[in-house]
């Protein structure tokens, strides 16, 4: 069984490693857009974009020419990261698995195996994570080498193989990126492997690591807390105190450390010394469990020092404080039952950054959250909370989509009303133009064929101008008419006709090459006009189709989507209610626990205040210092 403190350290290290990696020289804008959403933590939008882009990439005929091809591995890996970050563990890893099973080079397979292992580990499937790690062969890129080994160690710990984890973690002690984490986990692994003295020495080392990094400082505090607690249990109070003293005075463990320091001193009967940490602690946040305990512990120390008057006064203050805290707990419970806790959780202003849970305490009008910060920081509760927030987000999206269907249908109705009356007239006119165009194109084809024939069998008369053709025809008619005449005048006219025919024929034959060239040039010009005509024709056909496509064929899709959205909305609302109820129930359960503890403290304080007053009076009566 893993303990919470292990998970916390692992979670921090892995979360840092799983951040979406920056795109190398970007070639696909939509992939860049998915990264843009992911970098802002908008994983639904990032997944939506990337899923669409990957689906389109798989549909294209030649994927190697698609711009996503350049980023395809990163895209496959990113989709897994995004799914994981959007808490879709069941789906995460499919794309990475596909890469691992594909025919790709070993370095790519190694990276895929590492990413898959990380996903499986976060899915709480350490055995599958180990199987993925075992598929790594040959050289591993330097940039993931340490993270990979750290993951391997964490997997061994999760599988209850601390001795194997120890071996791996020992090799990682010099890794700068894992500073603090590798040291702490080695300590834990050694403790789990029953090498207690070595484990404690390691935790001591981890508790003294120098760093300005807040994450490393937090893990250092944690090392000291664990070390101190183990020492306290084994009654080595001096070392326990040293460990607790190393915990920072401001930080998530500071209250517990102060409380524990006091108990370490009290355990050696040095009550005078324990007054210092407990005295500091009672001035802190009164909802904190350690502070509440200190309110009893401090007068307990005074009574041990026989300063009964001070003890009685402090017990009395504690009693008042517990009463007020109980009222707060009750108010919180009432507020949660009224649904205010869930309302506070979805307040926009608190969801802006990673420390929003802490921010909840500072918000006005959220008394229901005062006692729940610790609970809200737990892994299970975080999952439930994030699911609730995700469901709220889905609810908002689905509602917005539902509204957009009416707008779409309105748009379609308007387009139909605009185009349908126009189209019959447009179509009729187009039919006429289309017939004319076909005829002209046939003529052009005929001309081209004739000109082609002239190249192999020259026929100059075919290139006669219209005037020349008319003149030749008239000469032919005159020639025919003159055949039936006789006489000198007729002969002269026949001579004249032949002369003119000769002139024309001469011209046709001598000008033939130029005329043929000119005819080809004219045909070329005609072809250019025909091209323009074709382009206009295609543009018209496309515009005509677009006009119909702008309103026809959407009804079924919209209807189907309407039903899907409605069904999803109903499911989301049901889950939202259930998730909300679970959160409220867990919160109320936590408050009940805190209430019981406060009541127990109250009983102890009541007894102790009376006892202290009695002792103070007795001391006073006997001439001592009350």
């Amino acid at each position, binding site marked *: 069984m893993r*303990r919470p403190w292990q998970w916390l350290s692992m979670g921090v290290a892995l979360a840092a490693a799983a951040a979406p990696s920056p795109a190398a020289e970007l070639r696909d*804008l939509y992939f860049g*857009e998915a990264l843009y959403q992911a*970098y*802002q933590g908008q994983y*639904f939008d990032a997944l939506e974009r990337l899923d669409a882009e990957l689906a389109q990439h798989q549909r294209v005929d030649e994927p190697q020419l698609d711009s996503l091809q350049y980023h395809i591995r990163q895209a496959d890996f990113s989709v897994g990261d995004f799914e994981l970050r959007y808490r879709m*563990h069941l789906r995460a890893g499919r794309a990475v698995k596909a890469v691992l099973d594909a025919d790709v080079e070993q370095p790519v397979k190694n990276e895929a195996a590492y990413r898959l292992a990380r996903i499986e580990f976060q899915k709480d499937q350490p055995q599958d994570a180990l199987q993925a790690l075992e598929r790594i062969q040959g050289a591993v890129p330097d940039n993931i080498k340490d993270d990979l080994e750290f993951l391997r160690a964490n997997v061994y710990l999760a599988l209850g193989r601390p001795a194997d984890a120890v071996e791996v973690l020992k090799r990682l002690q010099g890794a700068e990126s894992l500073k603090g984490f590798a040291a702490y986990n080695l300590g834990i692994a050694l403790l789990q492997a029953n090498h207690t003295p070595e484990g404690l020495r390691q935790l001591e080392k981890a508790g003294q690591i120098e760093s300005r990094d807040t994450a490393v400082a937090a893990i250092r505090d944690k090392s000291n807390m664990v070390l101190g607690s183990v020492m306290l249990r084994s009654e080595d109070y001096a070392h326990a105190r040293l460990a607790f003293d190393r915990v920072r005075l401001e930080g998530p463990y500071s209250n517990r450390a102060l409380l524990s320091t006091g*108990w370490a001193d009290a355990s050696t009967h040095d009550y005078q010394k324990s007054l210092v940490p407990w005295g500091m602690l009672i001035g802190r946040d009164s909802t904190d469990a350690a502070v509440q305990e200190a309110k009893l512990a401090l007068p307990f120390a005074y009574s041990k020092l026989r300063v009964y008057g001070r003890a009685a006064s402090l017990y009395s203050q504690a009693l008042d404080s517990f009463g007020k805290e109980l009222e707060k707990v009750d108010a919180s419970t009432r507020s949660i039952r009224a649904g205010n806790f869930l309302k506070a959780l979805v307040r926009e202003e608190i969801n802006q950054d990673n420390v929003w849970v802490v921010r909840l305490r500072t918000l006005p009008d959220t008394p229901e959250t005062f006692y729940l910060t610790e609970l809200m920081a737990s892994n*299970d509760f975080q999952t439930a909370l994030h699911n609730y927030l995700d469901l709220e987000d889905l609810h908002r999206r689905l509602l917005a989509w539902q509204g957009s269907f009416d707008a779409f249908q309105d748009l379609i109705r308007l387009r139909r009303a605009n185009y349908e009356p126009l189209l019959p007239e447009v179509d009729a006119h187009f039919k006429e133009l289309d017939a004319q165009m076909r005829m002209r194109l046939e003529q052009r084809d005929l001309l081209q064929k004739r000109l082609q024939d002239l190249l192999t069998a020259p026929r100059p008369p075919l290139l006669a101008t219209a005037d020349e053709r008319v003149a030749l025809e008239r000469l032919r008619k005159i020639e025919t008419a003159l055949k039936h005449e006789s006489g000198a005048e007729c002969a002269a006219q026949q001579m004249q006709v032949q002369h003119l025919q000769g002139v024309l024929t001469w011209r046709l034959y001598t000008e033939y090459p130029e005329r043929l060239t000119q005819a080809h040039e004219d045909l070329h010009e005609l072809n250019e006009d025909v091209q323009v005509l074709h382009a206009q024709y295609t543009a018209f056909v496309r515009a005509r189709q677009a006009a119909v496509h702008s309103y026809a064929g959407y009804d079924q899709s919209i209807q189907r989507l309407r039903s899907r959205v409605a069904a999803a909305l109903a499911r989301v609302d049901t889950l939202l209610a259930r998730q909300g109820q679970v959160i409220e129930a867990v919160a109320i359960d936590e408050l009940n*626990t805190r209430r019981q503890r406060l009541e127990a403290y109250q009983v102890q304080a009541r007894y102790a205040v009376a006892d202290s007053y009695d002792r103070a009076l007795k001391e006073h009566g006997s001439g001592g210092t009350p």
Partner: protein
Amino acid sequence: MRRHFLVVMSALLCLCARTSPADESARAQMKGLDEQVQEVKSDVLSIAAELNQLQEKLLYPSDTHLAVFVSLAKGETLRLDAVQIQIDGKLATHYIYSFKELEALRRGGVQRIYSGNVATGAHEIQVSVTGKLANGKDYSQTEHFPFTKEIKPKLIGVMLAGPDAPQPGIHLGDW
């Protein structure tokens, strides 16, 4: 008094490891719900994909579709405040950046700043940028670029770089 000592000590030591049957039942309930939430997320993502396709087809048909994307040059320190896009002299969009969006751009993300429709043929895009430089000075720049819209969707990538960048200014890429 010794009893009190033991009670509080045990409370301290048990702070982080409380598991009861009720906790286990709540955890099982949460796990069951978590799986259902994951399923519904999958379903909604698939709806979103279909809806997007429909929306694109209906609002931005490919023969008129124009999309403009904005990115920052690698290593750019310019604190981008706003970008304004005009197409053929008409305002298409004026976008003001939040800190998160600026960070996402700096890390290499690409923002789709505008989706719209234009007819096929020649057009002009005007990109105006305002922001602050690393030294705190105000920065503003405007550039005009011609572009041609063909039958296929037109994607324009606008890359922004401050005056200290190796290739300063506003650059237009065709995709």
